[in-house]
Structure formats: structure tokens, C-alpha cells
């Protein structure tokens, strides 16, 4: 997948491009709107990640010119201004998605994936990874031919980890994302939840157990093992 990143902050561009690389995607960096248009003239891209505030030519001007030329490449907007007016203006200008800074790289990757799925008309309600199938509507998870319906929190946790394979998540990060709490309750709620997911997806009668790629790194966090 070819992705154009138009972002003036070199350091942000560095880790995003590196992230793309680990996912096997090809990322091209342009530091402003003009060089972005130049890159677009050289090769086709599957998606554009566009920072809103840029030197020389800002995101809005860039979009106007790009859309005016009749192109429909999906655009994800990155911005530090997380208000609704800005969001609405972006959608009016023809962006497909929106991500406020500071963002997680995993979330950006997930959104790019969702956009490309939308383009290829794939079913986004199903998340398939390392042999595990997660239905986002019914919250049903299938592993080794064995299905179980997850609770809301179990589902959120599994989805969170699965969307960023290889990424380690700390307990606090998980608590914040899954339970929405900002503090450490000093309990093992995350471990318990992980344990429950593992238990639910382990066939009681199965002779040869294939380990679920849900890893616990003691003292560090949790990770969905990447293949």
C-alpha cells in the first residue's frame, strides 16, 4: 500500500513512516502541500495522511487543489484542533477521516486500513488476524473453530490489541481505553479480563491447543503477537 504523508514535523513523520514500514506499507513524506502535490504527480497513492497546519500551502488549500483536479484518493486529516467546526470543515472539503493529535500510530494504521477496506468494499465488521476472527457487531470471537461471545469490555480489549499487532500496551493504557478510567485502581482487573478472554477461547476438549497470540509481558504490558 502506498501512502503519502504530508506533515511538516519531521519527528512525527519519522515514527509514522517507520510504523508504515513495519506494516509493510510504502510511505512517502512531503513536508508541505506543494511538495505533496509534486509527489502525487509522480506516482499514485492509496491514501493521503494530511496535516492541517502546514507551511507554504496548508491542508485546506492542498485539498482544494487536489479535489479540484478531480482526484478521489482518500484523505485522513491530522490536526491539533480537535473541535467540531474544524472537523466539519474538513469533511466539507472532502476528507474521509479525521484524527486529532496526539494520536496513536496504531489508530492511524487502523483508520488507513478501514479506508482501504471501504474502497475495496470489504466487510469491516469482521476483523481477522492470526487465525482469530472477531465480529465487531455480534462481539463473537472465533479461534480454532471454537466461538465465544465476548462481553463489551473483553471485546474492546481484544480489538484494541488486535488492531496494533506487535505493539505493547501497558495496564494504564488499557484501563484508559477499555474502561475509560484515568487512574490505577490497584487491582488486577486487566489481568482478569485477559484471563477470561483466554479461557473463553480455549476449547475445553481440544487435545492440541494452539496458543492464542495474546501475550502477557510481566511488568510491562500486553501484546497481540505479530506474525
Amino acid at each position, binding site marked *: 500500500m502506498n501512502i503519502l504523508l504530508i506533515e511538516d514535523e519531521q519527528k512525527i513523520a519519522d*515514527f509514522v513512516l517507520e510504523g508504515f514500514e513495519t506494516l509493510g506499507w510504502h510511505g512517502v513524506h512531503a513536508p508541505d502541500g506543494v511538495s505533496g502535490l509534486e509527489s502525487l504527480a509522480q506516482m499514485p497513492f492509496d491514501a493521503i495522511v494530511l496535516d492541517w497546519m502546514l507551511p507554504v500551502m496548508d491542508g485546506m488549500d492542498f485539498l482544494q487543489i487536489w479535489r479540484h483536479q478531480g482526484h478521489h484518493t482518500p484523505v485522513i486529516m491530522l490536526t491539533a484542533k480537535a473541535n467540531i467546526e474544524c472537523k466539519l470543515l474538513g469533511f466539507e472539503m472532502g476528507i474521509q477521516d479525521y484524527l486529532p*493529535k496526539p494520536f496513536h500510530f496504531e489508530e492511524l494504521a487502523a483508520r488507513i486500513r478501514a479506508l482501504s477496506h471501504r474502497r475495496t468494499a470489504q466487510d469491516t465488521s469482521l476483523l481477522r488476524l492470526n487465525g482469530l476472527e472477531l465480529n465487531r457487531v455480534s462481539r463473537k470471537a472465533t479461534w480454532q473453530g471454537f466461538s465465544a461471545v465476548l462481553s463489551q469490555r473483553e471485546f474492546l480489549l481484544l480489538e484494541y490489541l488486535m488492531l496494533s499487532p506487535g505493539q505493547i500496551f501497558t495496564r494504564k493504557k488499557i484501563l*484508559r481505553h477499555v474502561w475509560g478510567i484515568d487512574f490505577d485502581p490497584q487491582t488486577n*482487573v486487566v489481568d482478569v479480563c485477559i484471563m477470561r478472554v483466554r479461557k473463553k477461547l480455549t476449547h475445553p476438549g481440544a487435545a492440541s491447543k494452539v496458543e492464542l497470540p495474546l501475550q502477557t509481558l510481566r511488568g510491562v504490558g500486553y501484546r497481540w503477537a505479530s506474525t
Partner: protein
Amino acid sequence: MRVLRSVGSRTFVFFIACSLVFIFGINRMWAGYFSQRIHQTLWDQEITQALWLEVVDLADPIDMPQLQRSLLKRIAYSQVADLRLDRQDEVNENPAKPFIWGATGTDSLEWVEQAGLNPMAKARHVHWSFEGHHWTWVSLHHRQQHYQMLLDHRVAQQSLARMWAVRDQTIWYQLPTVVLSAVLLAWLVTRLMLNPMQRLSQRLNQIVRLQPQERIDAKGSLKEFESLINAFNALLDRLQISYQQASRFSSDAAHELQTPLTILRGQLAQAINQAGDYHDVQIRLTSISDEVERLISITEKLLQLSLADAGRMSLVLEPIPLSDWVAELVDDAASFAPHLKTSWQGDPHVIWHADRNLARQLLTNLLSNAVKYNQVGGWIRFYLKQTDQDVELEIHNPTEADLQGMEEKLFERFYRLDPHHNRKTGGSGLGLSLCREIAKAHGGALTMGIKPQKNVVMRLRLPLQQSHTV
């Protein structure tokens, strides 16, 4: 005197005081005028009872010695002519009829001027004592003539008393009318003065609460209010400028922090993944990453607060099954705080129109607080109640902290009850403040109460139908 702290009561007291002065001052003179007329009528009657009556033209000067001599002559004459009535000892059976005593000598006549006996300028009483009996000599102006009368003292006193009674009666009859008119006047003046003021204060309130950008036009108001309105407008301008500056500062600061935080977060995640599993560096980096997340969370809250301050918290309203959410919260609490007994009761079908993300943040923040500031073996109880207009959610929990008198302080930004406690459990001191702003943006209110035995009650009141979006 709290009562006197209102314009209405002050006006009323002023008018009552004025009326009293009127009654007992001006009215006394007025009543005096009337009583003089009554007096004359009375004297007209008394004349028939007078022992002696002499009419002198006003033009002629009164010769006092001559008058006295005339009086003495009169008494002597009455004695000579035996006009004396029956002497019935000291008791006068018929006070209307004057006594006449036989005079044994004229040298014991005694004149006593009694000043102040009669307030009337034109009448003059002279108290005359003769052989232990008292007479009143009255000199009265009437129709261009002096009437000189000699009356039995008691009869004179009675007439006078009657006159005063009539005068006092007139005063007391007037009193209710005067008080009533004072009340009416006070009410009228207060209304006239206060109505424009009330309208003005309503308008000011409206501006302060809902339309901070608006200003009042001084031209339409009373002249006296012009300077007040101008001062208020100037104050609003200044407030708005400093408010905008403060709000823009935190908003700008938060924005400026976004980029470095994005870089930190992204590069840290990479570094954690690249460090070998269970490596010291990885463990240290994850703990740094937690702090970065905390920093991001604070920045996000600051940004939200600055939006709320500017009245630009954006809401996308949708129906939210509040009862289900509360039940979910109770389940959550049971999972991440199993040491606390959590329960809820209330209407199972409450729907609230709110912004999904903000509502979620509000509820989880409140739950977080109830968990954080709970006590060993404690509990959390949710009560959800729906009325015609609003939904009320109460969260009760016991606490170890002494919160008496802290009900408002806890909503202040960055207020920390116990810094050590906070450091242990996390938190930024912005949660409650943000909760209150979210409630406000939805037209509701968040308050805190302390019940006996250190039980905290968080009371969230939300309107069922969102009337306006802020």
C-alpha cells in the same frame, strides 16, 4: 436591619415617617384651625352659660385694669342683685351652670395667667381664683369683636377637653387613610423606580449567563442608569478580553503541546517495541510511556476546559440509555474495584439526550472519583430518578477524607485534596471541574454534598430535553 436593605422597604419607611410628621406636625396646625372653628361654636354655646359677657370692638384697645375693674364690679353686682344661686357646698350638681359665690371682699382676687392652656392664638384664658372658687376668663376674637367671658373653670375645662377630643378624633380618623396612602405611594414609587431596574438586572443576568458577547444599549434606558450601563459594558469588555486571553492561552498551550506529545508517544511506542522483551529498558520505557499518557490526558482535559470556558464545547446530541449505562458502570466498578460493594437503583428506562463521548467521560470520571476517595470495605450506590423535566443521578460513597466545607473547592481546577493520595492513584485534579463543565454544557448541574458519617453525595441533575447547545 436586613429588612431595610431593599428599596421598597426604605421607601415605605420614608413615607410612613413623612406621614407621621404630617399628622403630628402640619396636621396639628391644620387640626388647630378646625378646632378653633369648633371652639367658636362651642363658645357660642357656652356664652349662654357665661356669668358675664362683654363685647369690645377690636379696634378699641383692651384696657386690662379697666376690664378687671369691670369684672369685679360685675361680681359685686351679682352679689348685690343676689344673683347668687343656691350655695350647695363644694359639689356642683349641674356643671353646665356656673357657681356664683357671694364675695366677701375684693382684695383676694387672684389672676393666674395660664399660658399654653389654649393653643389658639386668638383666644385667651385667664384663670381667676376667688374665695377658693375658680373661674376662667376667656377673651376671644370673633367676627371683629372681642368677647370677654367669665366661665366656671370646670365648665371651661370640659369645653376645652371636648375640643381636644374632637381634634384628636380627627387625627385618629385620618391616621388609617394616611398610612394607607403612604403604603400606596411607597408601592407606586418603588414600582416606578424598581421596574426599570429589575428589567435592567434581568437583561444583565441574561447577558452574563447566555450572551456574553452582547452589550446593553444605554440609550433605551432611564437617564440615571446610563452611567451604570456604561460601567457594566466596560467591565464586560475588560472581562471578555482577559477571559479570552486566559482561555486562548490554555487552548494555545494545549495545541502547542500536541505536536511534541504526538512525537513522544509515537517514538516511545517504537522504542518499547524495539527493546527486547523483559529488558530493563523496555520496563523503564513503559513507565515513561504511562507518564506521557497522563500528560496527554491532562492536555486533552485542559483543551476541553478551554473550549467550555469559551462556550464552544461542541455537542452532538443523541439519545443515551442512561439506566443501561449506570448498570454498566456498576458492573465496571465490580470488576476494577471488587473490594467495594456497588449497587444501583432507580428507573430502568431513563433516556437522556447528550453527547455520547462527553457523557461517557462524565460518568466514568464520577465513578473514578467514588472509587478513588472511598474507604476500606466501602461501597458506592447509584440512585437514578426521573421527573417530568429532569434526570437526577446521585452517587453516594463513604470517604476517609474530611471534606466538610470543601464542596465547592473540589471543583476548582488542579485542586488537590491530598497530593500524596493523588500521586499514588493518578489523576490530574481536573476531572471534577471537567465533569461540572460537561453537565453545564448539557444544561444541567453537578453539585456535591456531605452527609453525616463522611458520606459524599455527588448530585448530577440533567434536563431531559436539551433546550440549547452551548
